[in-house]
Each structure stands twice: as structure tokens, then as C-alpha cells.
């Protein structure tokens, strides 16, 4: 094992508390630390030039000052075009297919643990560190395992489930083994800003946080109005373009009905939004594609585990069955609501994240 003093770590800094504390802890442990912030793509919304909310001028100068206080170099990496052609393009295309994508998963797959990690390695870094709430452990056979963060409420392993052995072997999550309250205390001890960026459902590249307006401007084809149809076949209204809706959505349908109606499926082929009663929402199974196994090895047979179908959902018991072409079939013990094509289905065994894939459209979500 290399001496920490000869170990170079690139820390992805955002100016927020988590990545600042990550950097501070590494400096304290004696690593040679380099701070890097990615300048990501954003819409041109102002004449002064647009800024992605992950890397505004204020956040850049915050991160720069923190780096200076910690006595480490700091650079901003131009990531605009890579981010545009991967994450933003992916977001648009997924909506075109009637899916509700999670761009953070895609960003971790293609930007943070590929583009940025490669840039770090090119700088002769031994590791890339981020402020994520997750842990990396090495088992007795030398394989890396991805674990939930100690602070379950902050756990981010869901969006990190795209990582493989190569990435985990080159990654550090210095705050993943700490509760958030402890991270704030450490920030105070180092005299770092303690305010964290507001947790937001909004996407970082939207000028105003309104993804519907973004799609109207950048992908008007997915915003074509069409009929709202009940599962019984009855037309009950007009929708404003399928990308405005997500599976399980109740509010904002603009349909008069005595019983509450939910989005049950979207039919891209004939641009119909299909709504039904709550008992029509449950799924006993799902399939997912583009499955990543953290271990790098596809399990030989079906196994019992817990599966999380959204970032903020609770993992629920299920039978996970590997299939061909990097797909899995997940059989839940009880029907699960809100199975949404495009979101991640992430597989856990207790605290261990085994991997995950992207939820496909399910048979009851296809056709009329």
C-alpha cells in the first residue's frame, strides 16, 4: 500500500458542505489533494451566459476559496459539450420513448465515473473522491463492494449503482461513513461553509427548474397534445404532451372524475395517456435493462434481495432473476406502485448495493 503522502486524490468539489468536508478530511489524512469542479452544460437563458445550477459563479468561487483554505490546487474542468451530448441528450431521448429518466444515474455512469475519473487518472491521481453518501469496502477476496451510506436518510448508493470494480477501486467516498450531522460538525471544525445545497428534484441543467418548458423548447415533438383515455376505453380529456406526466401521477390531469384517477401508462405509439383507479397501478413484477453488476459478474441464478425503484423509495423484497442481454426480471413479494419506465431498479442485500438497471415499459404499460 502506497503511503498517503505519495497518494494523489482528485476531489470533485461543488462548494457545498459534503464535498468540502470530503476534501478537508483527505487533506487532514495527509493525501496530496487536488480540487476539481466540472463546468456542466446549461441552457442559454440569459445574455450574461447560462450557468448550470451545479456550478454557478458563486459556487465556483466558494469552492475556490475552500480549496485555498485547505491549501490545495483547484481547477474548473470544461465538461459542457460532453455533458450536453450524453446526459442532456439522454434526458430528451428517454422522454421521447415515453420514459421518466433519472439523469443523475446517467451522469454518474458517463460523466463523473468516466469522464471525470479518466481526467483524474490522467493527472496521475490514484483516486477520485466525491462527497457522496455511500461506502466502498473490499472483501476478503479483494473485490470491491458498494454499500449504503451510514446515514440512511442521505444514502446515495441508488445513483451510484452504475459503478463497477474498476471505478470503485479508484474511488473514495470520505463522508459516506459519517452521519450528516457529523459532517456539519467537521465543516465547522475546519471553518468551512456548513450550508448544504438545497436537495432538489429539479435538474441541474434547467435554467428555471421547469423541465416541461425545457422539453417544449428542446424537444417539442414530445409535447404534442393527445387524448386522455381511461383503461375502460373512455376518452375523458386531453393531455398536454406525454412528457408532462409520469406513472402514478394524480394531480394536474385536468380530468373531472368522482374517483381519483392515476396515470397508469403512456402509449407513445398513439400518443394516449391512459388513466385508471389506484388498484390498477400496482405491479407484481418488472424488467430492467442496461443492468450493471457491481461485482462485474452476473449472478448464475435467481436470488432473493430488496429492490429500490426510485431514489426516495424504500427497498422492497423481491426475487431477482438475471436474463439475457443484460436484463433482469424482478418479482415482488407484493404489488408495488409507481413502477416507472426510465427510473433505476437497484438491487440490495441489506446494506450492500449489488447493482441495478433501468426499468423498461412493462406489459401492462404497453398498448391501449
Amino acid at each position: 500500500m502506497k503511503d498517503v503522502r505519495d497518494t494523489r486524490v482528485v476531489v470533485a468539489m461543488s462548494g457545498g458542505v459534503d464535498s468540502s468536508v470530503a476534501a478537508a478530511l483527505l487533506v487532514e489524512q495527509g493525501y496530496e489533494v487536488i480540487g476539481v469542479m466540472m463546468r456542466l452544460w446549461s441552457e442559454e437563458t440569459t445574455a450574461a451566459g447560462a450557468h448550470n445550477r451545479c456550478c454557478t459563479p458563486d459556487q465556483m468561487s466558494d469552492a475556490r476559496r475552500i480549496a485555498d483554505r485547505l491549501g490545495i490546487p483547484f481547477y474548473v474542468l470544461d465538461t459542457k459539450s460532453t455533458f450536453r451530448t450524453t446526459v442532456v441528450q439522454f434526458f430528451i431521448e428517454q422522454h421521447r420513448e415515453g420514459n421518466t429518466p433519472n439523469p443523475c444515474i446517467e451522469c454518474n455512469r458517463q460523466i463523473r465515473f468516466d469522464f471525470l475519473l479518466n481526467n483524474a487518472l490522467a493527472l496521475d491521481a490514484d483516486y477520485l473522491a466525491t462527497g457522496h453518501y455511500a461506502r466502498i469496502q473490499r472483501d476478503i477476496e479483494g473485490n470491491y463492494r458498494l454499500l449504503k451510506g451510514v446515514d440512511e436518510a442521505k444514502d446515495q448508493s441508488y445513483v451510484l449503482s452504475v459503478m463497477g470494480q474498476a471505478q470503485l477501486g479508484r474511488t473514495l467516498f470520505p463522508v459516506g461513513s459519517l452521519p450528516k450531522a457529523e459532517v456539519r460538525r467537521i465543516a465547522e471544525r475546519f471553518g468551512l461553509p456548513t450550508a448544504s445545497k438545497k436537495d432538489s428534484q429539479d435538474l441541474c441543467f434547467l435554467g428555471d427548474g421547469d423541465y416541461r418548458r425545457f422539453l417544449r423548447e428542446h424537444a417539442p415533438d414530445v409535447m404534442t397534445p393527445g387524448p386522455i383515455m381511461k383503461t375502460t376505453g373512455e376518452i375523458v380529456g386531453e393531455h398536454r404532451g406525454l412528457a408532462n406526466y409520469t406513472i402514478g401521477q394524480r394531480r394536474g390531469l385536468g380530468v373531472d372524475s368522482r374517483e381519483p384517477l392515476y396515470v397508469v401508462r403512456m402509449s407513445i405509439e398513439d400518443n394516449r395517456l391512459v388513466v385508471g383507479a389506484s388498484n390498477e397501478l400496482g405491479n407484481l413484477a418488472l424488467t430492467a435493462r442496461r443492468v450493471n453488476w457491481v461485482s462485474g459478474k452476473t449472478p448464475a441464478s435467481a436470488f432473493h434481495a430488496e429492490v429500490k425503484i426510485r431514489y426516495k423509495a424504500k427497498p422492497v423484497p423481491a426475487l431477482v432473476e438475471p436474463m439475457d442481454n443484460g436484463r433482469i426480471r424482478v418479482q415482488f413479494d407484493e404489488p408495488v406502485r409507481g413502477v416507472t419506465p426510465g427510473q433505476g431498479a437497484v438491487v440490495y442485500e441489506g446494506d450492500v448495493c449489488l447493482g441495478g438497471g433501468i426499468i423498461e415499459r412493462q406489459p401492462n404499460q404497453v398498448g391501449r
Partner: protein
Amino acid sequence: MARRMVYLDHSATTPMDPRVLDALLPCFSDVYGNTSSSHSEGRRAERALETARETIAGLLNCKPHEIVFTSGGSESDNMAIRGVAWYARRVQQEVHLVASAVEHPAVGKTMAVTAGELGCTYSLLAVDHYGRVDAEAAAEVIQPSTTLVSVMAVNNEVGTLEPIAQLAALAHSRGVLFHTDAVQAGGQVRLDVQQLNVDLLSLSAHKFYGPKGVGLLYVRDGVNLHPTQTGGSHEGGRRSGTVNTPGIVGMAKALEIAYDGFDEFTAHYRTMRDLLIDEVLTHVPGTILTGHRTERLPSHASFVVDGVEANTLLMHLDTRGVLVSSGSACKTGNPEPSDVLLAMGLSREAALSSVRLTVGRSTTEEDVAYAVEALRASVERARTLPSGGLYDFN
């Protein structure tokens, strides 16, 4: 190679010469008077100020009262352009201004802004692929209403020397004033204002081992400037504000040192620069020299590095201890291609891939060798950056 720190960004700024520090320090404490005060401390400060002015006037070959002290190059450029244009606007209907297409923004942007504010027009002089203004083409641009032509003595990005004396003669033959931003040339080109025959000339002390925050504008007798900063009528009413005695005394000392050792310094710069250019072109694949091979600032080397984004390269070089700059220098990850390189006819991609290495008095052959190896290694790394899987760099 053992790690060292090599500063090759002397065109951005230079460290202050210790002799300059010795000269200016007393002006913060001992000679503390306000040069405008009539009492003995005021007179002591005034003596220090006027001695500095005489020293500088002697070196530039002008009269002391033709020197106006400023806060630096940008203020001097603003004073020249705004001062001439505002004055002209009072006495004539149409005002037309001219600058080269490769000026520093202190001239280029100031001229555009001033033209907008005053409702006058301006033209830019095209350059060849070295970034050099063609005097014959310049003759076409001058109109009866042209009031001022401003062309830099040396381009900051590509180091090209501009034909100042020739352009000044052309301007005068048409009754037009001529200004030169000589900030990059300071200390490395003998700036004799009579020989150059310019009407206005900007200098900044920190480019020639002097202090930051001080510069000057040479204003030939008879040139009318509208004062851009008014108040207590310091500097002959041309630049109000309590005079920065320490900075000015330091600038005079720095210019004196630069001129005393002129041949020795510039010979050293040339040797280091030529070594740097030869070694880079030989050992770093895909590099092209920008600007002229010989008609360039003695300390200045600049390159386009094919297929490498300059800011990424600067990051790699910094981690290896080599400090340089780029034409698209940017600390916010949002690089814009250099206007200068675009005006010289380079592609947008090439203009985003330019680096500038500028040597100084302390640069050694070992520094150059270290920097070239660091550049070679950095370029190799920055160029092969893959995606779609981790790259094994070992």
C-alpha cells in the same frame, strides 16, 4: 526529473526586483507626504515624484511633463482613447477611431464602448497570419474624420512586434493622432518616443519587474486630452487623485534597471526563448508556433497544441509545477476562443488550443528543459483522454 516550479508566465506579470522594493519602501513611511501639500513633507514627496518623472522621461526620451502617471496599462489606454475621442467630439461633428484587430481588450473594448457612448464610428485593421498590421492596408482605412489610430507595440498573445514607427508616420501624414499600447513591450523594446514618433504611449510597471497598480501614459505636447478622471487637478489636470508616490518611484527604478541591463537581459530572454521554441517544436508532437519566428518579443513563445484544450493543458502543467497561460485563459471552465488568433485566421479549435510561455530574467536552461518535458508529458495525457471505460495510464 526532480520536481521543480518553473514560472513561464512573465507576460502576465513579473516578480518585483528587490532593488525596486528597496527604492519604493521608504515612500510608504519616511517620505509619506502628499505631493500636493505645500509643507516640507509635501515638498519631500514631490521631489521623489518629480525625480522619478525625470528619470522616466530621460529613458523614454520625452519631457517630464509629457508623462501622466496612472494606475496601470488599462487606465492609460482608457485615458488615451476616451480622452482623445471626447475632446474631438467637442470640436468636430464626426469622429472616427481606428485600432488593430488584435488589441488587448483595454484598447479594443474601450474603443467599442467609447464609440457607442459618443455616437462615433471605429474601424479595425486586419492582420496577417503573424498578427501583424499591414501599413498599406491601414492607409485605406483612415478617413477625413479619423481622429486616432491605436496599434499595440507588441501583441500579448503571440508576441508579434507591430510596425509602430511606420504606422505612426502614416497616421501623421494624414493628420491623425497615434497611440500605442506598449504594455507588453515595456523593458524589452527600447521605447524612444521621438524615434517611434508616437503621440500617446501606455506602459505598466509590473510587466518589467516593477510594482503592480502603477503605469503611465506619455502624452506628446500639444495633444489635447479630455480628462477622464476629474477632481483636484493632479498631473496637470489630466489625472486627478492623490499621487501613488511609492508605485511611481518603484516604476522609475524598475525601468532604470531594465534599461541599464537592456542588452544583457534581452540577450538572455532571446536565448531562453529560442531554446524553448526549438525544444517544444522538436519534442512535443502537433505543436505550431504562433506569431513570427524572429520578429517577436524577446521573452515570448506561443504555440497551438493540436487536439488539446488549453485549459486542460494548463491544469496538467500546473500539477507538474509549470506555470503558463493560454489565449483562452479561463478560470470558470467556459473557455472562449482567442479573438487575436481568430483574427490571424486560425480555426476556432486551434484558437482554443493556444498556450503562451514567456521567459524571464531568472529562467535557466534547466527550467526550459523541465518545462518542455512537462509539456510533452501533459500533452500526451491531455490528448489521449478517452471515455467509455477507464483508461490505464500506466
